């Protein structure tokens, strides 16, 4: 009895220590809880069908995504094999040794040629190396109520008041005029829904795209210099413009992100809503948006000097250094970058970064917003990707929120304060 017990235990021990386990291998990908994660789960089921390796996409709400990911990475945990992390995390995650260097993988597999270069620059690259494969391209754009814009009475009234035709705004002044025109509290109608949430990066993203559109910058990303850049005269004007836009949002619009902005649109509260393109499938779906047939989309319009930019969204997929399945994860990435898989990813609703798929007529015509998305991907700009990005993000939220939502202080004082905060954080 004792001999057979020992034999069984030895067998189990051998099995568990074997690197090619007899147990079916599994991979876990960690992402934020949103529709693209559901599309990815559908896609990776095909990997299981091909290889027998089960892939699970685990998710958590956006507000907790950064906290939970870094809690796991800091603990050197192996709960996840891969993470679809934000571009701002590249600095902290690579410097901390949490991501596997994929530079060789990218060059050996031709990803640097098959994927859009801008996506590799923003989603993958930090400090001269590559740390992820671009998975979900995204940018900030706008949805609008075509029926309101095309209503003859509204058009006539708009022309009478502003002197030009009511149409998709060609610049920020027109965007502001249209927002003002449709703000009618007595009718429970408002001009715009903007990002104002401060629990992660929403407010910062909304404002940064306005700053970029005014020709401004957040700082010198190479040297870390911020004084005179973040609080430049053009940035002050941009911030004042965002504050003015905020006065045309629904009441108490102080903690709004993608859910609230889409809800404002589906409930018929606003004429225009800012949101990442990844959230527009819900607006194009008649079962989730009663105004789907009357919803149009446009890229962030140019500023007063003709500069046009959109806040970068989207993420790349990285292999976590503490994963025990790195070899299998590499195989998964090799599968993922295949052209047919990228096409399937786009068909499911994912925003591919494959150049061939992104520029195809099939993709551009696949949804009402894909053209605006493709236009936006050419004009994207991103936040800092340095290791202390989180501190800088919250400092920006802390400074901007009172000014934008209540008009407390002035735009100049707000940005001067932010410059001081960032100088200390960056060690300048």
């Amino acid at each position, binding site marked *: 009895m004792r001999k057979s017990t020992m034999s069984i235990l030895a067998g189990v021990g051998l099995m568990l220590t074997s690197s090619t386990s007899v147990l079916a291998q599994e991979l876990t990908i960690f992402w934020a809880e949103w529709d693209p994660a559901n599309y990815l789960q559908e896609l990776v089921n095909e990997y299981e069908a091909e290889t027998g390796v089960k892939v699970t996409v685990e998710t958590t709400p956006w507000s907790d995504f950064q906290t939970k990911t*870094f809690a796991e990475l800091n603990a050197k945990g192996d709960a996840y094999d891969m993470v679809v992390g934000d571009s701002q995390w590249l600095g902290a995650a690579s410097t901390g040794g*949490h991501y596997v260097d994929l530079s060789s993988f990218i060059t050996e597999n031709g990803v640097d040629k098959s994927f859009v270069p801008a996506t590799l620059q923003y989603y993958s690259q930090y400090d001269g190396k590559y740390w992820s494969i671009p998975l979900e391209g995204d940018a900030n754009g706008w949805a609008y109520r075509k029926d309101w814009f095309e209503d003859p009475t509204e058009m006539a009234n708009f022309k009478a008041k502003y002197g030009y035709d009511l149409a998709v705004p060609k610049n920020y002044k027109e965007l502001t005029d249209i927002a003002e025109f449709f703000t009618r509290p007595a009718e429970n109608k408002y001009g715009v829904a903007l990002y104002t949430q401060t629990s992660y990066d929403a407010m910062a993203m909304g404002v940064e795209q306005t700053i970029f559109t005014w020709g401004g910058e957040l700082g010198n990303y190479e040297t870390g210099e911020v004084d005179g850049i973040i609080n430049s005269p053009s940035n002050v004007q941009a911030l004042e413009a965002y504050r003015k836009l905020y006065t045309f949002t629904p009441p108490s619009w*102080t903690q709004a992100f993608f859910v609230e902005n889409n809800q404002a649109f589906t409930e018929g509260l606003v004429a225009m809503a800012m949101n990442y393109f990844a959230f527009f499938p819900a607006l194009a779906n008649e079962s989730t948006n009663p105004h789907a047939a009357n919803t149009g989309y446009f890229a962030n319009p140019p500023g007063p000097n003709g500069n046009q930019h959109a806040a970068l969204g989207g993420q790349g997929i990285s292999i976590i250094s503490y994963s025990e399945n790195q070899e299998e994860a590499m195989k998964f990435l090799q599968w993922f970058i295949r052209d047919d898989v990228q096409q399937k990813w786009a068909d499911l609703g994912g925003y591919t970064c494959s150049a061939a798929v992104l520029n195809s007529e099939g993709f551009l015509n696949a949804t009402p917003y894909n053209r605006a998305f493709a236009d936006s991907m050419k004009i994207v700009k991103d936040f800092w990707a340095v290791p202390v990005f989180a*501190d800088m993000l919250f400092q920006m939220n802390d400074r901007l929120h009172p000014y934008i939502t209540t008009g407390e202080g002035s735009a100049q004082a707000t940005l001067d304060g932010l410059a001081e905060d960032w100088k200390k954080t960056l060690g300048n």
Partner: protein
Amino acid sequence: MAVLATIDSGSRAAARGWSDLAIRNAFILPTIGFLVVFNIFPLIYSLGFSFTEYRVSLNKPAEFIGIQNYVDLLADPAIWRSFSTTAQYVIVSVGGQMVVGFGLALLLNRPFKYKGLFTTLLLLPMMLSPAVVGLFWKLLYDPSWGPINYALGIGKFEWLGNRVNALFAVAITDIWMWSPFVMLLSLAGLSAIPKHLYEAAAIDRASWWYTFTRITLPLVSPLLLIALIFRTMEAFKAFDLPFIMSTASVETIAIKLYQMAFQGWDTGRASALAYIVLIVVLCITNIYVKYLNKVKER
């Protein structure tokens, strides 16, 4: 230590195997072990981190910088803003809880029909999850479709829109949730007051105010002070309701600490801030306890 003392091996208890002392130790030691591992050790470990520059996300060793974290924090206007917000929140919230809680206790301190049912219903708010309470009150305060504005006829008043309004809004929610706690302690104190004192006051034709200030309040004040101590400590650490209802507008020191520790991953500074908060809470509690002892001696 007496708890770890062994008994005389020649005694009759030792001869029986497990002694009473051994059994007692066996029950206590796991709890002590748990406290050491999850309370004492982290306390000392984080004290060490508070004197270092250390970001756990960067995988670099901690660098000793002395008291620089404490100096930087105490010179940071953002930290003082959070302390100021927290102090205002404590005053409004705890003050409201004491008034409402004690008032409810005075009303309940008499026999009436269904007293038990009313008391139980009044206790329900503090039995709810703070997350649920925060989310529901956020909906109640909504300016477009919330019932509060509709019931009060105040149009689209923005409860959570700015710092001042949001502070009062969150404090009102906290008062609604925790007044029952004050009510419970006050009821216990009120019911312990000897009836003959009120009878004697009635015979002497003492006014209601005289009776309240000379009999009720002095005799119930020890329990009121205990309620005040507990609620002040909790309000000072307020995180759940402000976080759920209005992070940006009611940024308490606990929220600031959470952001620093678990979003910015600035472990060194966060540890220093945690100790500053601990010292502040200890000082306030000490003042209260000293006053409580004086009241008890009277």
